[in-house]
């Protein structure tokens, strides 16, 4: 029996980390089901959401899945939030359509839902009879378009370029790609390769090694997120072709910014996850106070290059 008690030590340890008295706190509770905390993007969002909660005088509970694409686990998190009792749900969907059952559960308990960062399939939402109060996030199509225009201006018409795609069917990745392809077409660029690397750094490395091998004359690559762009940069330097290929990413995470300063990466589209977290919780608080909110709340995006990197944050 003694060993049983020992086995509970890690649990108790975890519970003692920053616990506060749950029951005596009467502030409204915002449940924030966030994609994953393995990505600095979402860590920034979480930090901002929590400080926004302090300003708005609400409690913000943040729970993340262990893996980025694990929708089932995200539904579990939402169910557990609802068991606990929350006033409002903020969620960054792990799947465009598969997250809808979670939204339905919240609707069933009259808990309003604010979708953050990546959109939910509108048609499927309607079919399921689910309802969201608001969407907070950046316009990914516009971001992709700016990346396409930038590359177009750098390499000129006829430039040979590659795309590293996110997971197929992932709304965010596909919107970025759609915007990028529109701009690439109007600038007369030639897309010689467009491969899936699942928003993953090591996959970005592997896939781009193959792309480089197959396309000797490649001039530029657009990666639908920075992790894949970082992988691509490593592949380029591993192939001894550093500096010869323009790499543009998306998200402008810290490591990408460092590479842009060093000139190893040309540009990245900055989204402001901190803005998203802050606006999401502020919007949630407005809904709790009974205010009307807009159905789409865009957060800012910017093209970050070596020239403007120190003027932006």
């Amino acid at each position: 029996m003694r060993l049983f008690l020992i086995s509970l030590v890690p649990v108790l340890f975890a519970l003692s980390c920053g616990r506060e008295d749950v029951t005596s706190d009467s502030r409204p509770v915002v449940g924030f089901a966030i994609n994953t905390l393995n990505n600095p993007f979402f860590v920034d969002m979480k930090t901002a959401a929590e400080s926004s909660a302090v300003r708005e005088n609400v409690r913000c509970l943040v729970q993340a899945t262990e893996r980025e694409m694990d929708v089932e686990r995200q539904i579990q998190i939402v169910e557990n939030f609802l068991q606990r009792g929350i006033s409002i749900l903020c969620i960054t969907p792990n799947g465009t359509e598969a997250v809808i059952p979670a939204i339905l559960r919240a609707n069933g308990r009259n808990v309003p839902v604010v979708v953050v960062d990546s959109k939910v399939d509108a048609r499927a939402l309607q079919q399921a009879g689910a309802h969201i109060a608001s969407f907070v996030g950046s316009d990914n199509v516009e971001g992709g378009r700016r990346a396409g225009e930038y590359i177009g201006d750098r390499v000129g018409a006829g430039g040979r370029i590659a795309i590293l795609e996110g997971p197929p069917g992932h709304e965010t990745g596909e919107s970025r790609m759609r915007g990028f392809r529109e701009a690439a077409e109007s600038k007369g660029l030639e897309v010689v390769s467009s491969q899936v690397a699942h928003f993953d750094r090591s996959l970005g490395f592997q896939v781009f090694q193959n792309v480089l091998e197959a396309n000797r004359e490649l001039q530029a690559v657009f990666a639908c997120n920075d992790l894949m762009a970082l992988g691509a940069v490593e592949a380029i330097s591993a192939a001894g072709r550093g500096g010869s290929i323009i790499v543009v990413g998306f998200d402008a995470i810290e490591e990408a910014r460092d590479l842009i300063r060093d000139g190893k990466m040309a540009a990245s589209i900055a989204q402001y996850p901190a803005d998203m977290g802050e606006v999401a919780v502020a919007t949630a608080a407005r809904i709790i106070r009974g205010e009307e909110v807009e159905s789409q709340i865009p957060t800012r995006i910017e093209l970050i290059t070596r020239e403007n990197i120190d003027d932006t944050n």
Partner: protein
Amino acid sequence: MLRSISAHRQFGTLAGLVLLCAVFAFLSPYFLTVSNLLNVMQQTAIIAIIAAGMTLVIVSGGIDLSVGSIVALAGLVVGDLLHQGFAMWLAIPIGLLAGFILGGLNGLLVAWTNLPPFIATLGMMSVARGGALMYAGGGSISGFERSFRFLAEGEVFGLPFPVIIMAAVFGTVHVVLTRTRFGRYVYSIGGNEKAAYLAGVPVRFHKAVVYGVCGMLSGAAAVLLTSRLNSAQSVAGVMYELDAIAAAVIGGASLLGGAGTALGTLIGALIMGVLRNGLNLLDVSSYIQQVVIGAVIVFAVMVDMNLGKGLNLFRAQRETP
């Protein structure tokens, strides 16, 4: 008294589960409610059903790393058939059959080519995942009829339907393992394959069937998952194999083969489910949750092994004059 308790090998795990629940009940006012306990069981059902099949495989002395990928592929088969207008009662058995065939392929490889199960099923893990990605072009098949959604969302006499399926699966596996010749053969193969063979047990056949059944139960889990998400996804079930193995091992199954029970595995799966649920309710940071879950797996198995040793010692002392 200790003697009769020690006869039930899953006592240690059950005590662990009860203690865990007691701790969460003490720390969170939201844990010990009927609706939350049903919620936990409902959340555990999918992994538990896979773990039931995994128990058979582990008892037979093997391991199956391909279950998560089989979940994805079988789920897509069912989703695709439903979208093509097949009736549910036809699409579901075909999905189970797909799981059985994929699992059976593992079994054939393990039984007839003497490939280590780790390697054979590692191969299948990749093949089935690739197959799933090809099948759906990397995407998903979404949107099903209300009647199909009932499988995961419905309730019968207040019990979530997945919980009923889970109970039925574990009841069946329990009976098969404890009351049938098939079960005895599986234990004997896992205990000592050579001895089983020399005693006339059709070793190869039983091994192949065990993997087939594990695949079929993964197919059953796939049906529930597809219904729950209202979507069959090519990326579904990633790393489910590890949860299923953990559930079986926490429940007292030995990776050396020959030991493991259906009930123990069910309790093991519930321990994992309760942990995730309780840590969510207490708003424990997601990072710490992973640490805790890993630590509990290791401790639970350690406790189980030591408890068994202690009781055996006790028994040996009593029986020595």
